[in-house]
């Protein structure tokens, strides 16, 4: 058990190092930060001076090592664009993204499970077929277009919901929340739907497929034969058994939600880390980009690790094999 955990942890560190290398090497190609830092009136001498100051003239491994050394201490340097510590900026922006991700995740899970169960039980009804169809339309259009169409309908034409930003936020000791104000809650609706739509469809279809499969299993047939009520069968037995894969998938999708928040945040001017990242790309703000990618990597590695360990704890067969079956 311990050797397995240690092995996995070492692998996770290796993955992080690799991810860091990939992220860091990317920046050499996205553009020259010096150009954005200096204004219209810069001279060649200014450019060289600043390159020296930022350490951009050092060999690549030196720059990478310096980056890692500081990153381990939680120091991602100063944002070229804002002139503030990157860690501080990310801490300030994280609540917006996490709240949005949480709401869209919850939306995806609840709507997904409800609709999934419904479409499985009423497999051939018109309503359930339309639900399936509409959900497919939702994933057959790019996210940015869905966001803009939602803005057009609900903000411009109907004037019900705000088109951008978080509304009023309340500061709870460094964590700004939009949950405590009416405008904050209203502002969450459109972005959360835009972001969660894809995951909702995914979960819905997964639940539906699992339910259909489970309902065909022998033990359900036995239960039915024993005269258990449909309700008890559907919810106590069938749904319960579909939840394991749903939880796994949801866990793995959590990272995707945060990554795809980049697009939703750009469309809705949502002041989270995704928008920060896009701005950083446009401004070639290397420290912010590096920190963002490292954090995303860290998050995925943790999620993977937790899932691995859970599998290990649940499924004794894997103990012999020493790993989870990657299905």
């Amino acid at each position: 058990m311990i050797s397995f955990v240690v092995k996995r942890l070492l692998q996770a560190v290796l993955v992080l190092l690799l991810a860091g290398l990939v992220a860091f090497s990317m920046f050499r190609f996205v553009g020259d930060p010096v150009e954005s830092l200096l204004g219209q009136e810069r001279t060649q001498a200014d450019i060289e001076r600043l390159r020296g100051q930022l350490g951009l003239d050092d060999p690549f491994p030196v720059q990478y090592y310096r980056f890692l050394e500081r990153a381990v201490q939680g120091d991602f340097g100063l944002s070229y664009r804002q002139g503030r510590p990157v860690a501080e900026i990310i801490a300030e922006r994280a609540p917006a993204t996490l709240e949005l991700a949480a709401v869209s995740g919850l939306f995806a899970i609840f709507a997904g499970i409800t609709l999934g169960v419904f479409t499985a039980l009423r497999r051939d009804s018109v309503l359930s077929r339309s639900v399936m169809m509409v959900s497919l339309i939702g994933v057959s259009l790019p996210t940015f277009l869905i966001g803009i169409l939602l803005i057009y309908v609900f903000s411009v034409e109907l004037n019900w919901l705000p088109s951008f930003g978080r509304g009023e936020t309340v500061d709870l000791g460094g964590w700004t929340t939009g949950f405590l104000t009416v405008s904050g809650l209203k502002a969450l609706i459109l972005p959360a739907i835009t972001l969660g739509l894809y995951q909702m469809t995914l979960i819905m279809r997964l639940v539906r497929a699992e339910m259909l499969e489970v309902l065909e299993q022998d033990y359900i047939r036995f239960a039915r034969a024993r005269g258990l009520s449909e309700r008890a069968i559907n919810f106590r037995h069938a749904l319960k058994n579909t939840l394991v894969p749903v939880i796994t998938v949801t866990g793995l999708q959590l990272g995707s939600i945060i990554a795809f928040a980049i697009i939703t945040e750009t469309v809705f001017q949502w002041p989270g880390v995704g928008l920060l990242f896009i701005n950083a790309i446009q401004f070639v703000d290397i420290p912010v980009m590096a920190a963002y990618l490292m954090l995303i990597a860290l998050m995925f590695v943790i999620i993977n690790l937790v899932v691995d360990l859970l599998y290990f704890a649940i499924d004794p067969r894997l103990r012999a094999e020493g790993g989870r079956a990657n299905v």
Partner: protein
Amino acid sequence: MSDIIGPESDRSSLKRIWTSDLIWSFRNAPVAICSAIVLAILVLSALFTPLIAPYNPFDPSTLNLMNGFSKPFEKNEFTGDLFWLGADDQGRDVFSTILYGLRVSLFVGFLAVLLAMAIGIVLGLIAGYAGGITDTIIMRIADVQLTFPSILIAMFIFGIAKGITPIELRDQMAIWVLILSIGLSDWVQFARVIRGATLVESNKDYVQAARIIGRSSTAIMFRHILPNVVSPILVIATISLALAIITEATLSFLGVGAPPTQPSLGTLIRIGQGFLFSGEWWILLFPAFTLLFLALSVNLLGDWLRDALNPRLR
């Protein structure tokens, strides 16, 4: 099926699916038939675009800017030209541009999925069959890959490619970079499924037997194991195709998609969304509906395929 052992049985079972079950199921699924028809129309028009399209919007010398924003079915006030579905901000015929864009989107989608499939199959088979350290390394690479969401990977590859391709090739580069980046970000699914199946299959008697009689590893992997995973691969491939087309569109929004001079459907939608409020709806809606029909029909086919290939659900 467990009563028959050996490669012949696998091939014949495959054949059986294709000849009877699958077709039977298809004939009884009106949604699948409709999707197949829509998809066939779209693919055919993409294949024969130069014959169908009244204009070639990819040839800039044929464009007249004064045709810009021509309304559908109305003559342009300056030039007197008529465009069925209107013209966009550059004076391009929207109908022709959609056809050419469809061609780009499908080309990118198909090749990206093929690439993902090829990488996934090879790595999945190797990982599952070889096991041990090879398996660990490949699956850890898959983890790194999953660590970076597809759009980030694509942006990353795009950035690198822009840096290393010679200036005179950059114009043509965009499409290939898209294929490479979407393909590279999508292989993990294939690899995982195949590795899983390989782990299961390679312990079965017929594979052990093949090994004993001295068949080469490659032969075992491709002849014996692969045919068993054709159905899940097919399902994943279909869904990946829809995903690849949408990913391409999303990348366009982030500014790393097909260039505006040779637009894909995604680029057209990105350009068109700027005209949503100003009343030139045709620049956005026609490409958007084309993309919707394309992705939807592929998704619906994938759906049907999954149900059809999973006998327990019938």
